[in-house]
């Protein structure tokens, strides 16, 4: 250990040690000479003899120096400074190579930091890979899983493959007190946190007793809520807050890493309080299970099959065999369930960035190849002077690693910027996007990646060269081993083409999406969505769920909206197209109220609860019959308006007016409006009129449904003024209701951000990749021209015209460009089928995309060759070549 520190301190005193050694050896020589002189030699002869005796002075010094510090360290520092000097001298090379690594590492690190969270990183639960989502799927209700209380209670005890727990999603709740706030509450069972393996950061989870109806309300705070609302104060534990009007004790704080199984953000975690007793069999929840040791998702599904069949039989008896027949059991690992709808987009992103990294790596390889070709002589001299092969390889290794790490470090900065930008433009709720950071794991990835870029792609070709050429130094010309470089260029082009056609497909799909007719006129429409706070409007509830206060609020708001300055039309609705959850009803129950169900009656129908004026406000055309009027709101009147799709389904080509829809009568038909997002076909839909009294309000299983609504105003004012007057209308009714104002156009735009985001990223990769490939091609052709200087000179001397020489160079480049293009188109055809799931109304082998890009690559390839040609003429890269040609031409003239 002491020897280590001694060497370390000597490292710092290098010049002093050097001087001391010189003096020490000088003394030795003097002494020796003196001694020889004493033996009778002449002074001069004695000095020479002493010097002879000493032997190889340089070797002696070197051997001694080697004992002072660690030799490898010395050599490393030497290699490093030499590498740095070389890079500084060769600026064009250094910038190009660093630039490529910078872009590759930056893009890949940013993408990895996003994708890693969802695809690779363990879930933030203990042994998250043992968690499964358990449920039943009934297509008639949609693609999601359902779980009924009856089944859950039974399955929990009737099998031993998986430990089940349940939760009920995240829903709005209201924080009362000094600063009323709308919050998100996750409702779960007492066994939920233990099953997931999550321990509260502070305090504790609620007990089974606290998870019963009638128990004192308790809640756990999310970490974010604890920090922002309570300043991270520990003494908050045990205090009470007003939650949905009830004093609720805070009993714990969740860890910062906690996330709900469906990734919905939440502020508070409260007991679900599953209802017990009669008539609670159909209570619905979401079920998560932890596999017991030795079980897999498949074996758990098999174990649940028995209880499921039992439930199905029971369900068939209670509800109907036809319904029961269509449902099946679904057990899926939790992670797969979470990323189900994102998986494809994530892999496409990862694939895109991978292709981009390969393009950049090919560039680095090409640059290093060119550089090592230029350094053949240098290495031959070093080898001749006794530089061992190990030492030469170490030099190359150091250079590549230095290049990689410098580019990688810069790339991390780029990644940080890209990540910020991504988070800024990413659609709200993109899978775990906001949590993505450059943490140790991601930085480790970046380091490994930059080393791989530089070492594998840079060193491998250099080593191959080193082996052949180390021993014969001065072959100045005639090296035609450029096939590797040409192959690299061709593959770069191919990869760029794949990226380009992928981006082209996404772009076309986005264009289609943006130009899809919505079926409504979104211009000059302002909306305000709100949920009446439960603590103000939840009192004096009627058994069906509404309250007199609520009804009064809506009536007053309606009147105010109609009176807003600039309002052309206004309405209140419970949901808005094109996306936000409309209510649905099984088609079967509407088409055939007698309960006779046939297979043709599958599917569901959307419906909205709107006030008269809804169609005018949104500009939805009335095709047949009439709009709602106040007469339709009278007691006992059940009039509805259907969209064209539902009308056709109901009566084919007949007149639907006056026909029954369940217990309702159809009074009108309106145009179809996109109601399943922008990228899915329109669903059948009907509209029910909002009642102005408590009577006849439809029932709902969602107890916040009554309080949730959106006000829609079509205004002839400018956006800003229209928003202001809408805000004023609310303030006049109740200033304490929080509202979210948005134009209809902005609402529609939300549905485009995700495809826009994907397209932007892929386009970015594609164009940067193409630019890199172009730069690579330019470099290659310049290199070829420089390499063939003599050959070209001889050709010109023998009478070749500049045109013929140009043809020679172009033909070479064109061959490989063509090879790359063909390869790229072939690869696009097969790889891009994978994209189909992300596309809207675009078929992957869309001839237009292929033709367009085949054309662009051909013209692009040629134009990219142009700089290589012009370098012959005006001599930027191929200066020697140009000079030679000019000299030869002058010769012939003279």
């Amino acid at each position: 250990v002491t020897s280590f520190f001694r060497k370390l301190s000597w490292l710092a005193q290098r010049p002093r040690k050097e001087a001391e050694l010189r003096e020490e050896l000088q003394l030795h020589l003097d002494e020796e000479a003196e001694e020889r002189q004493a033996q009778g030699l002449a002074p001069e002869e004695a000095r020479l003899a002493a010097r002879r005796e000493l032997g190889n002075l340089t070797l002696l010094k070197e051997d001694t120096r080697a004992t002072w510090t660690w030799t490898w360290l010395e050599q490393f520092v030497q290699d490093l400074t030499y590498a740095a000097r070389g890079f500084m001298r060769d600026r064009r090379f250094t910038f190009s190579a660093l630039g490529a690594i910078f872009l590759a590492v930056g893009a890949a690190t940013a993408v990895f930091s996003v994708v890693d969270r969802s695809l690779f990183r363990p879930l933030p639960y203990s042994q998250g890979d043992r968690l499964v989502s358990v449920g039943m799927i009934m297509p008639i209700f949609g693609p999601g899983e359902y779980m009924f209380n009856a089944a859950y209670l039974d399955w929990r005890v009737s099998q031993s493959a998986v430990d089940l727990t349940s939760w009920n999603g995240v829903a709005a709740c209201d924080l009362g007190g000094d600063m009323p706030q709308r919050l998100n509450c996750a409702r779960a069972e007492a066994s939920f946190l233990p099953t997931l393996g999550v321990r509260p950061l502070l305090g504790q989870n609620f007990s089974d007793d606290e998870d019963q109806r009638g128990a004192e309300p308790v809640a756990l705070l999310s970490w974010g809520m604890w920090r922002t609302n309570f300043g991270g104060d520990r003494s908050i534990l045990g205090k009470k807050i007003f939650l949905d009007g009830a004093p609720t004790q805070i009993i714990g704080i969740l860890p910062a890493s906690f996330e709900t199984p469906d990734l919905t953000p939440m502020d508070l975690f409260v007991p679900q309080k599953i209802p017990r007793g009669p008539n609670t069999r159909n209570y619905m929840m979401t079920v998560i299970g932890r596999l017991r040791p030795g079980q897999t998702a498949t074996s758990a599904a098999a174990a649940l099959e028995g209880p499921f069949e039992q439930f199905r039989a029971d369900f068939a008896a209670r509800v109907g065999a036809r319904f029961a027949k269509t449902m099946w059991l679904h057990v899926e690992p939790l992670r797969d369930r979470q990323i189900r709808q994102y998986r494809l987009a994530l892999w496409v992103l990862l694939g895109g960035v991978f292709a981009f990294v390969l393009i950049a790596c090919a560039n680095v390889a090409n640059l290093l190849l060119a550089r090592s070709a230029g350094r053949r002589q240098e290495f031959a001299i070093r080898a001749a002077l006794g530089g061992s092969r190990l030492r030469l390889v170490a030099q190359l290794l150091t250079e590549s690693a230095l290049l990689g790490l410098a580019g990688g470090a810069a790339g991390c900065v780029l990644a940080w910027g890209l990540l910020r930008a991504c988070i800024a433009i990413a659609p709200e709720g993109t899978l775990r996007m906001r949590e993505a950071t450059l943490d140790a794991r991601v930085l480790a990835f970046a380091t490994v990646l930059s080393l791989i870029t530089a070492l594998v792609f840079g060193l491998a070709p250099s080593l191959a060269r080193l082996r052949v050429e180390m021993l014969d130094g001065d072959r100045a010309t005639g090296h035609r081993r450029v096939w590797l470089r040409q192959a690299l260029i061709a593959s770069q082009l191919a990869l760029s083409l794949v990226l380009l056609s992928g981006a082209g497909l996404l772009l076309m799909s986005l264009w289609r999406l943006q130009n899809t007719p919505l079926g409504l006129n979104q211009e000059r429409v302002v909306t305000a969505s709100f949920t009446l706070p439960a603590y103000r409007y939840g009192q004096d509830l009627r058994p069906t769920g509404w309250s007199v206060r609520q009804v009064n609020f809506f009536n007053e708001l309606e009147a105010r909206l109609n009176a807003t300055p600039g309002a052309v039309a206004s309405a209140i609705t419970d949901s808005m197209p094109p996306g936000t959850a409309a209510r649905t009803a099984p088609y079967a129950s509407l088409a055939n109220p007698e309960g006779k169900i046939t297979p043709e009656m599958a599917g569901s129908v959307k419906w909205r609860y709107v006030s008269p004026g809804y169609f005018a406000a949104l500009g939805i055309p009335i095709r047949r019959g009439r709009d709602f009027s106040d007469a339709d709101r009278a007691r006992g009147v059940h009039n509805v308006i259907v969209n064209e799709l539902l009308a056709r389904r109901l009566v084919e080509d007949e007149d639907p007016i006056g026909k029954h829809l369940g217990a309702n009568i159809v009074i009108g038909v309106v145009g179809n409006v996109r109601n399943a997002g922008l990228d899915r076909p329109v669903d059948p839909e009907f509209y029910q009129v909002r009642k102005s009294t408590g009577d006849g309000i439809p029932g709902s299983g969602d107890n916040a449904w009554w309080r949730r609504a959106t006000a829609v105003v079509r205004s002839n004012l400018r956006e800003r003024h229209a928003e202001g007057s809408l805000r004023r209308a609310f303030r006049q009714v109740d200033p304490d209701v929080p509202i979210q104002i948005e134009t209809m156009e902005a609402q529609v735009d939300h549905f485009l951000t995700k495809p826009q985001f994907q397209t932007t990223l892929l386009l970015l990769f594609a164009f940067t990749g193409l630019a890199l490939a172009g730069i690579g091609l330019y470099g290659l052709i310049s290199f070829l021209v420089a390499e063939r200087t003599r050959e070209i000179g001889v050709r010109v001397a023998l009478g070749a015209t500049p045109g013929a020489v140009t043809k020679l160079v172009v033909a070479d480049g064109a061959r490989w460009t063509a090879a790359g293009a063909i390869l790229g188109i072939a690869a696009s055809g097969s790889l891009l089928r994978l994209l189909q799931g992300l596309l809207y109304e675009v078929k992957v082998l869309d001839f237009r995309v292929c033709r367009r890009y085949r054309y662009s690559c051909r013209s692009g390839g040629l134009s990219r060759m142009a700089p290589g040609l012009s370098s012959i003429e005006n001599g930027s890269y191929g200066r020697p070549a140009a000079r030679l040609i000019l000299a030869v031409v002058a010769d012939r003239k003279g």
Partner: protein
Amino acid sequence: MDHKSPSRVELLQGTLDLLILRTLLPGPNHGHAIAKHIRRTSEDVLQVETGSLYPALHRLEAKGWIAASWELSDKGKRARYYRLTASGRKQLANEQSKWQAFSRAIGLILNPADQEGQ
């Protein structure tokens, strides 16, 4: 090499360290004197190459067995004097006993009769 007398022998690998340490046992000395001492004491049989003496001295110093300081020699010149450290002394004892065991073993093999006679 050419002017080496045939009676001189090459130093065995690793013995130079031992010789240096032993030479420094009586007191500090500088490089040239150490070489001279080894040559004289071995009756000119052991010739220390200067090319290996100085690297060896510096190596021993790095290991901490000897320490160096600049002092005036008896001739009044500034010289780098090496002296044995405590750990060097221990090392010397170690090496010495190892060497003695080794040379005795060699002797046993080379002169069996001699040993039997004793």
